[in-house]
């Protein structure tokens, strides 16, 4: 809602400056978004009359004008505007005037002829965005008067960002009521006098949808002078309220809407077939709107129709066929009450947010219908004459909004706000808001006026009292409360600890969108189902991620393309698995590693990160959860397609797959235009389970016995397989088994490799005998030979 400060002060005029007024409104819940001067900064511009306009001797497009400016001799001013002509009243920037942009007017010679100033357009005075020629003033404008004074240009346009509940403030009437309440001032309303009817014709109205239109009022005005001009003062007020002046009929309906909050519409009576029908849309109905746009009527749209079909989208926009034009003689003024429920959502569906729809959606006062018709007729008669007909109203009492009666308990008010407000003040606040009150035992019974759609229960009244009393006048206090410590679970790993781990290991946390590009999803996961949005913001953000990897890879791509080649990234977040038409939200964690282990080659030549760097970063997490490294298996069977088949694995714990680790498949990398090896890890955090609560095990006091075994096995046998056999057959005194060397090449057959293990034995409560150790070793070797064909290397 945008309005002029001057206009508002005509309704209610508190003795405070504009800044204070804006602050008051904001602090009462009518947030002032902006407050700007209505005109540019200028001075020295007065009203003058062109008493003579002659062709410039040396320029085709210039005229030499003699301007009467009141006292003294006429001024000679050269003007190039096409409408500069004898007899009109104009804005004269005299010598010494300063126009917007600090443009000083000086005596000048234009093509050899002296000019003592400049004639101004609206645009040059900052009164309009653009202008065709100089500004023309009404014939009764007082010659010689300062234009700022004449047009009351020392005015501010105040823009209020109204909340969805305050439909009642979409008018001068509503805003001034609030200002009056805050400042305890009476509000002046414009004088609205019902005109005598000059004819008795009325338009029949049939309401077929009274749930959407409980009340429809209209009146016919005949023989309107369509050539009449909207007075400058009205144009100015509309302009300052953000509405462009168009024609007297349209301007008057807008002016009434701004004044009283009642949106109105004018139809050309000649083009209405028989009668007005208010009904819902029919299937396949279309309507060409005022702006020439044809719309397909959506179901359950409230329509204004005549016998032949729709003529307007009720409460949103009129149709072209019945629009008022230069040829119009008789008009039908509409002033109706359409219910918020009937209009809500419709402007959005049609993409038509109009000054009318925004008001109807929030609620227009159903009791102002007739008043608006009277005010409009009165204003229009002054401007464009015509004969006014009787007001005709159809209404349905059953569907008109009921008047709420609400009890406000004083005790409740105090308990709710935490402040004791004097009862008399409470009643005063309510009354000034237009709510009538009746004191009863516990508080007051309040009758809500027809314009306050937002007040339906006690809490609403509490807010009304609080906001007028002033939120700032309510104390700040911390509640005294009973302590309820939440159980802290030591074995729950919180996400922040996990983030800390990777932060400390040199990873940067990324945050990517939950919706991703289907192409990226497909590149990684093929046909795996993903849930699609119905209304994505862009096609590359249209499906819900099932994995964090597409997002992280996109981040990698972005950074690689900005010469950032060493990347260590992690992300945790919700992924949306989609199976059998059901969504499961899973918390996942992913790492992306690429580039060099070290920023320079100083510390070793082979510097590129590899699988084992990433594996260490995963095991750090496994450590945090309390996993023994041997409980984690990296299985290379059945790998997803996006991973390099020879450099990747599925991470398993006790046969549960918890994630994948490995190198991005070169083919996928190529498809995503990534040209360096990328190492990826993704795990489903739920499968990590809880952390292990430590239970202290005894420490042996007896000496360790160490044995190294260098084994020769087939290339296909994994270190893990050998390790598993060793652990199974080495007996309970085996403490640890570690790999210390892997060798392939000379002295070995091509399909063989050698892996060397260190086994450490230790008895818990006794010193191990050499023989017992040897027995364990023999048993291990025997099993290795049988199960894996491994033999001790010579």
């Amino acid at each position, binding site marked *: 809602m945008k309005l002029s400060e001057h206009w508002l002060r005509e309704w209610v005029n508190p003795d405070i400056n504009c800044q204070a007024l804006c602050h008051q409104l904001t*602090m*009462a*819940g009518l*947030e002032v978004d902006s407050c700007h001067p209505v005109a540019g900064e200028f001075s020295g511009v007065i009203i003058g009359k062109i008493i003579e306009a002659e062709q410039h001797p040396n320029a085709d497009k210039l005229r030499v004008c003699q301007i009467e400016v009141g006292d003294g001799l006429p001024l000679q001013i050269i003007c190039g505007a096409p409408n500069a002509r004898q007899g009109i009243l104009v804005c004269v920037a005299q010598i010494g005037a300063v126009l917007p942009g600090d443009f000083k007017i000086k005596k000048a010679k234009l093509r050899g002829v002296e000019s003592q100033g400049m004639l101004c357009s609206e645009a040059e005075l900052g009164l309009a965005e653009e202008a065709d020629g100089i500004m023309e003033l009404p014939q009764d404008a007082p010659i010689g008067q300062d234009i700022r004074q004449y047009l009351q240009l020392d005015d501010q346009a105040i823009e209020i960002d109204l*909340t*969805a*509940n305050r439909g009642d403030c979409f008018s001068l009437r509503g805003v001034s009521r609030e200002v009056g309440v805050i400042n305890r001032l009476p509000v002046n309303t414009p004088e609205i006098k019902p005109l005598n009817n000059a004819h008795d014709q009325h338009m029949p109205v049939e309401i077929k949808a009274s749930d959407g239109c409980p009340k429809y009022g209209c009146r016919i005005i005949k023989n309107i002078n369509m050539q009449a001009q909207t007075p400058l003062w009205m144009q100015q007020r509309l302009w300052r309220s953000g509405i462009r002046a168009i024609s007297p009929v349209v301007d008057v309906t807008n002016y009434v809407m701004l004044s009283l909050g009642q949106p109105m519409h004018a139809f050309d009576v000649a083009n209405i077939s028989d009668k007005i029908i208010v009904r819902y849309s029919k299937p396949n109905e279309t309507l060409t709107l005022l702006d020439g746009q044809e719309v397909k009527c959506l179901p359950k749209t409230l329509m204004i129709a005549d016998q032949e079909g729709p003529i307007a989208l009720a409460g949103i926009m009129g149709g072209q066929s019945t629009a008022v034009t230069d040829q119009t003689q008789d008009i039908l003024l509409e002033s109706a009450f359409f219910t918020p*429920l009937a209009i*809500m*959502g419709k402007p959005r569906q049609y993409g038509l947010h109009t000054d009318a729809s925004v008001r109807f959606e*929030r609620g227009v006062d159903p009791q102002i219908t007739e008043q608006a018709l009277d005010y409009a007729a009165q204003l229009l008669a002054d401007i464009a004459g015509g004969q006014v007909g009787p007001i005709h109203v159809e209404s349905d009492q059953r569907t008109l909004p009921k008047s709420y009666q609400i009890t406000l308990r004083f005790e409740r008010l105090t*308990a*709710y*706000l*935490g*402040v004791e407000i004097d009862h008399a003040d409470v009643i005063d606040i309510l009354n000034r808001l237009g709510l009538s009150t009746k004191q009863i035992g516990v508080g007051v019974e309040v009758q809500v006026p027809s314009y306050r759609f937002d007040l339906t*229960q006690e*809490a*609403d009244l*509490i807010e009304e009292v*609080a*906001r007028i009393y002033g*939120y700032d006048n*309510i104390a*700040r*206090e911390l*509640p005294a*409360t009973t*302590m*309820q*410590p*939440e159980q802290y679970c030591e074995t729950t790993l919180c996400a*922040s600890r996990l983030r800390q781990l*990777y*932060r400390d290991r*040199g990873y*940067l*946390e*990324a*945050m990517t*969108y*939950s*919706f991703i590009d289907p192409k990226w999803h497909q590149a990684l996961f093929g046909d795996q189902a993903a*849930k699609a*949005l*119905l209304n994505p*913001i*862009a096609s590359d953000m249209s499906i*819900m991620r099932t994995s964090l990897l597409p997002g992280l890879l996109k981040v990698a791509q*972005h*950074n690689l393309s900005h010469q*950032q080649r*060493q*990347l*260590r*990234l992690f992300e945790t977040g919700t992924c949306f698995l989609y199976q059998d038409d059901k*969504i499961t939200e899973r918390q996942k964690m992913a790492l992306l590693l690429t580039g060099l282990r*070290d*920023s320079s080659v*100083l510390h070793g030549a082979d510097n590129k990160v590899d699988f084992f760097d990433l594996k260490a970063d995963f095991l750090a997490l496994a450590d945090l959860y309390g996993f023994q490294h041997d409980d984690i298996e990296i299985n290379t069977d059945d790998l997803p397609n996006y991973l390099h088949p020879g450099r990747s694995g599925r991470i398993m714990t006790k046969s549960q797959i918890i994630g994948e680790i490995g190198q991005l498949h070169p083919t996928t990398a190529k498809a995503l235009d990534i040209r360096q090896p990328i190492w990826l890890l993704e795990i489903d955090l739920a499968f990590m389970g809880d952390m292990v609560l430590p239970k202290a095990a005894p420490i042996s006091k007896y000496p360790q016995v160490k044995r190294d075994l260098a084994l020769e096995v087939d290339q296909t046998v994994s270190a893990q397989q050998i390790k598993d056999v060793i652990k199974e057959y080495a007996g309970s005194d085996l403490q640890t088994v570690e790999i210390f060397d892997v060798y392939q090449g000379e002295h070995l057959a091509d399909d063989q490799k050698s892996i060397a293990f260190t086994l450490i034995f230790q008895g818990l409560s006794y010193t191990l005998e050499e023989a017992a150790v040897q027995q364990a070793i023999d048993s291990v070797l025997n099993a290795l030979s049988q199960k894996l064909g491994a033999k001790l290397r010579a």
Partner: protein
Amino acid sequence: MQSQLAQISQAAENAIAESQDSQTLENIRVQYLGKKGQLTDLLKGLSQLPAKERPQAGQAVNAVKQALQQKITEQQLKLSEQALQKQLVEEAIDVSLPARACHRGAVHPVTRTRQRIESFFSRMGFSIASGPEIDDDYHNFQALNIPEHHPARAAQDTFYFADGNVLRTQTSNVQIRVMENQAPPVRIIAPGRVFRCDSDVTHTPMFHQVEGLWVDKGIKFSHLKGVLAAFLNDFFESQVKTRFRPSYFPFTEPSAEVDVECVKCSGKGCRICSQTGWLEILGCGMVHPNVLRNVNIDPEIYTGFAFGMGIERLTMLRYEVDDLRLFFENDVRFLSQF
């Protein structure tokens, strides 16, 4: 004998002084002081001297022997000191060279802010709750007193799925889910991702919110003011000036918006606060009785307050981030600053 001793002593001293390594020095020791060394031989020859000269001669030899031993020890020390110095020089490195495999890690600035908010409310006795990011219309809207086509929905451009579910537009859905399952007192915050179908310089289609809720007997608007003022002081680590201004949210009544005095210009007016001197930080209010009724809590017995704030906005103010889009672009040159 005397002259022989002097000669040996002189020769030995010269040899010691000239020795450059411990092996040479050892050889010198053996040559003079060893079992078959020259001084040892001299001592052995004493028996051939007349008895009364023996003690004096013995003393003289022993004196030389001791002196030489002393010289050798000194030389030994000197040599090992030299060797150490040499080693130290040889081992010197350029300490200004880069460290090995050293990477600067960082948590995302939005996470950082979220953790600070969680920390404050945890200290105030709030539990941290979470809920689904895809939810039904009921939990995201209707239970929060936002009926279909309510104008408040227009302000929250919603992402829909074909089945009618939505990407939550606010973390308030968690409020409902917690209250459906827990009788008062309820004291929670719900941080998380929210989604709105809007993208421009100041809007990203996904962002983060923290929603808070305290429902109990005797909770008042003044408590809401107290708790949020305490939070803002904690967050900005100073006594910030705040103002509570009436506003409208369907799920609270009375509703308020909280502004803090611009942290950049201290209220004088600048670009950050659009010349108003105030920054809009969060929305809040007393839980609407309809919302309590929707979860079967009797609003006559219990009252509560709720609030919600955007984490990105607070992060931008705290760390002077001037472009919202940086948060989700994930440029490592940005991320590594936190």
